């Protein structure tokens, strides 16, 4: 068993060594990633510098939504965010090298990199979470603790699945790759705010098509015992793992179809 993971371990280990070899570059990369996290939180902060409540959530609750969504997204970004470089491989014809190796292409692509710099953004999300959690009035039960622990992981799974869905579509789009950013980065953007501010069609889109609301908003409704807005009741918060499974099912089917559609450009 351990033997079949070895190639991936070696690949990832080499990537990590490569990224940390140049200390100063690595530090500046991590700082850049911290800055992205701080910027995203600044947006929420500025909104709440003007209002007390947004979408029926106060600042503490909105910060909780932000922290969980960001933690999930930046974990996914660290682990699989680099699959959005697939169009580069397609254009340059370097995907063929992956096809020649006796390992699944998706697994190779995912383990071909790990963006350690994104630890910076994860750090920001963890700090916001640590500050926001005690500020919220949560009636702790075993089930809610479990949900809190599970949420960042399932959120990461949702966003990772969205990244793979996006990569799958690249086999057809290539040049039009940016379309998918609307759903990966756009999904992340939407997930960091209470979904109750969206109009009903948009809320349904970001709940049932691009399940961004499952990443943080719906679980937070459960944690705070708040009723959800029309179309997205509170109990959906417990269904986050189902959303992750659904995204991955679509992602893997799409990836298979995409890879079959691919024809190399030759050498």
């Amino acid at each position: 068993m351990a033997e079949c993971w070895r190639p991936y371990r070696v690949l990832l280990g080499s990537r990590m060594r490569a990224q940390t070899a140049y200390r100063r570059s690595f530090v500046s990369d991590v700082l850049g990633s911290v800055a992205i996290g701080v910027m995203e939180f600044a947006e929420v902060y500025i909104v709440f510098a003007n209002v007390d409540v947004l979408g029926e959530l106060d600042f503490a609750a909105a910060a909780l939504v932000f922290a969980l969504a960001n933690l999930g997204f930046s974990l996914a970004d660290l682990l699989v965010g680099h699959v959005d470089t697939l169009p580069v491989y397609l254009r340059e014809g370097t995907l063929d090298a992956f096809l020649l190796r006796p390992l699944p292409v998706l697994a190779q692509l995912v383990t071909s990199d790990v963006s350690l710099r994104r630890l910076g953004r994860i750090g920001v999300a963890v700090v916001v979470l640590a500050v926001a959690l005690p500020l919220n009035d949560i009636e702790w039960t075993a089930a809610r603790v479990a949900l809190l622990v599970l949420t960042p992981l399932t959120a990461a799974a949702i966003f990772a699945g969205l990244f793979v869905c996006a990569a799958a579509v690249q086999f057809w789009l290539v040049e039009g790759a940016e379309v998918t950013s609307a759903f990966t980065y756009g999904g992340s953007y939407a997930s960091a705010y209470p979904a109750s501010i969206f109009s009903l069609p948009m809320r349904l889109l970001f709940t049932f098509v691009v399940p961004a609301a499952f990443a943080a908003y719906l679980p937070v409704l459960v944690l705070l015992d708040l009723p959800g807005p029309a179309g997205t009741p509170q109990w959906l918060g417990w269904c986050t793992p189902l959303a992750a499974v659904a995204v991955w099912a679509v992602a893997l089917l799409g990836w298979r179809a995409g890879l079959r559609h691919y024809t190399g450009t030759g050498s």
Partner: protein
Amino acid sequence: MRLFATLVVLGFRRWSTYRLATAAGAFTNTVFGLIKASIMVGAIGAAGGELAGYDARTGATYAWLVQALVATVNVFNWSELALRVRDGDIAIDLARPVDPQLAYLAGFVGRAIHQLIPRGGPPLLAGALVTGLALPSTPLPYLLGAVSVVLGVCVSFGVWWLVNLSAFWLVELRGVLTLNVVAMAILSGLAIPVHWFPDWLATLAALTPYPSILQTPVDIVTARVEGTAALGELAVQVAWLAGVLLLGRLVFARGARKLVVQGG
């Protein structure tokens, strides 16, 4: 002048080749516009229908306009110069009988002109359909706004030029470029209008050229600032433009003096 115009046209053509990429970018700008407009309208609603001079309609218009202009003023990426410094191609630019800063500015403006309609039209159209747009009905704000957008594009170039010049002294630039994107995304008003900032952040923003890139053009186009106040804002933009371009020339000259390119 003829040379500048030719370089602008070439910059335009370089981008007009990739139609699908442009359409894809416009689509993404539009989706982000939807989310941004929702956040703004939500916040304005929570504030009781009016927030720092924005009501639901003008707030949504703000969100759609920044999304329509974000590609034109190029908030997210320009590292062409830095890459040429790193791989030594800058030597070719230095050997040309053209001022490098002016030549790159021309390319940047050509790109901006190309992006204006195809990247700006779809978000505005979506805005008109989804939330409605609150736009002035007299021609003057558009005229001044057009000048302001051009100035905004040039200020953005000046800032990117300066950031890129750090390639003369640093090898790995991703961190520095990211910091600039972050500063620009917040302080230009892309994320949230500068008028919503708490005092300390508004002061900080006013000390940087970033608001001149997006906030000012949008303020003028929507006639939030009119008449002499609008002229005053344009003057601020011109001052920042002169500042960043001049500083850019000085730093470039220093960097070029220090530069060593391996010949072959």
